[in-house]
């Protein structure tokens, strides 16, 4: 307890927020050690302000820690709530990393093999994003599946967010792919068909479920690769310009649909 006390007029000005920052700090310093002045300032304080200050304090103390990965996503411009959803799918992220790593290792090992192996790599690589979608949304890979499925959050947006953490690994696959094919243009041939297959699986998911849509598309793709090779004699027939253009159109349509879905969801909020 200090021997001197703050003047009532100063306490009133402090409580009403009329003091400058230096004087406020001085009064606060005194209040922390003086029970009599703390009691004296109470009648001047607005209960609403006190409640708000208390709620702010509780909120600051209770606020969950933000993991590094989530902070990185926020720094990259993702809204905090979306970053939390993306970062929360750690199980999916691990499965994705594992899947991509397997493909990358396969690609590196295949580097010294003949062109036929490279062709097979290109044929299988488009299925990687498709598998990623399965991992990101499948009931086996995400323990909260039923809770998530009953929530109103856009499934498409959620799956895209869940896929976000694996983009660096997809880049790694791309890099590995470029190691086994003779030129960099051929190395990226799988990318557009891969994204198109992932988009189609997302579109079909709502009608026939994730498992069936992914299995069906994977079979169709492998059938298309084999059939086009058999009919034309060219190992890269499945990656012809027409296929690339068609894939691009599918990806573009999916991007527009995703944007419209998100906008509609925002309007409904």
């Amino acid at each position: 307890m200090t021997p001197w006390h703050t003047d009532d007029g100063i306490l009133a000005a402090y409580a009403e927020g009329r003091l400058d920052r230096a004087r406020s700090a001085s009064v606060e310093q005194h209040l922390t050690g003086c029970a009599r002045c703390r009691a004296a300032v109470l009648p001047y304080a607005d209960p609403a302000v006190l409640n708000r200050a208390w709620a702010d304090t509780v909120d600051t103390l209770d606020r969950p820690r933000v993991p590094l990965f989530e902070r990185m996503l926020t720094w990259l411009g993702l809204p905090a709530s979306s970053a939390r959803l993306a970062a929360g799918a750690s199980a999916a992220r691990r499965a994705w990393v594992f899947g991509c790593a397997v493909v990358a290792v396969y690609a590196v090992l295949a580097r010294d093999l003949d062109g036929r192996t490279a062709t097979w790599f290109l044929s299988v690589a488009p299925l990687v994003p498709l598998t990623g979608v399965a991992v990101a949304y499948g009931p086996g890979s995400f323990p909260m599946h039923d809770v998530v499925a009953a929530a109103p959050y856009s499934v498409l947006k959620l799956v895209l967010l869940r896929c976000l953490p694996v983009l660096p690994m997809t880049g790694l696959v791309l890099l590995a792919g470029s190691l086994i094919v003779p030129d960099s243009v051929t190395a990226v041939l799988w990318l557009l068909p891969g994204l198109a297959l992932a988009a189609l699986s997302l579109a079909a998911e709502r009608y026939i479920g994730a498992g069936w849509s992914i299995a069906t598309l994977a079979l169709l793709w492998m059938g298309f690769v084999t059939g086009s090779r058999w009919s034309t004699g060219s190992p890269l027939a499945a990656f012809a310009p027409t296929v690339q253009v068609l894939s691009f159109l599918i990806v573009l349509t999916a991007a527009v649909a995703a944007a419209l879905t998100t906008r509609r969801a925002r309007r409904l909020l």
Partner: protein
Amino acid sequence: MTDIRLTGVSKNYGRHRVLDAVTLQAGPGVLGMLGPNGAGKTTLLRILATVAGPSAGRVELLGRDIADPALRTEVRRKLGYVPQETGFPSGFTAFEYLDYVGILKEMPDRRARHDEVRRVLDVVGLSPMARRRIRRLSGGMKQRLVIAQALLGDPRLLVLDEPTVGLDPEQRLRFRDTVSAMAENRCVVVSTHQTEDIVAFCPRVVVLHEGRALFDGPPRELAATAAGRVWEGATRDAGARLAWRTGDGALRQVGEPPAGAQLVEPSLEDGYLLLVGRADLPVEEVAA
């Protein structure tokens, strides 16, 4: 108001029919679902939670046909769901988990969402555990956490699949108190194996068996179906469908009158056992 309207709802998994033309209507209040394992309770509740769609029939929730994706999303905005089994994202605390579900329930404002998280933690008595990692919570606490996520956003329709599993008697009472209070102005569907839960707080019970609704009415009417068929005596009668020794040593028997036995007041459990046992249950002795 009718919050749930099911018309001829069936669900098949391959050739196996899990639900067979179930028709049901429900408004505000607690609706209890009883039935043996494999009766179709979880499938029905997953349909009510919009997680699964019916193979046939029409499902209207809160006045909306959930076959329409946009209307289904509207229903989900007003829905709370406790699945029979669920996991948790690895590494999350109780608060972070509820915060995560809050985002999924379209609560974009962080401050309002956190206030709501604190509210539901308080409702289920987990406020002191808010910052504890989920993997360090007991089974009962995890179950309360799952119940808490269902309460986020003050839903109009609550679908709870065996929510009292893992709760101790005190927590179960607290749960009944919470659900009863909520059911005053909203529809709550509770699936359970616990007949005492049904007696305690469900004014209406539906008994499912092999995908069909065998009974729909007040619990006392279900108990009354066993009137004149429940006996207590000293010895087991060969004609009893079910018999078990009660806590006070008497042999309680359900079925035809055993010699020298006294007719007693039937319980909900007696009515339930007779109803589902009539179809296919073998005569067996159940240890009390």
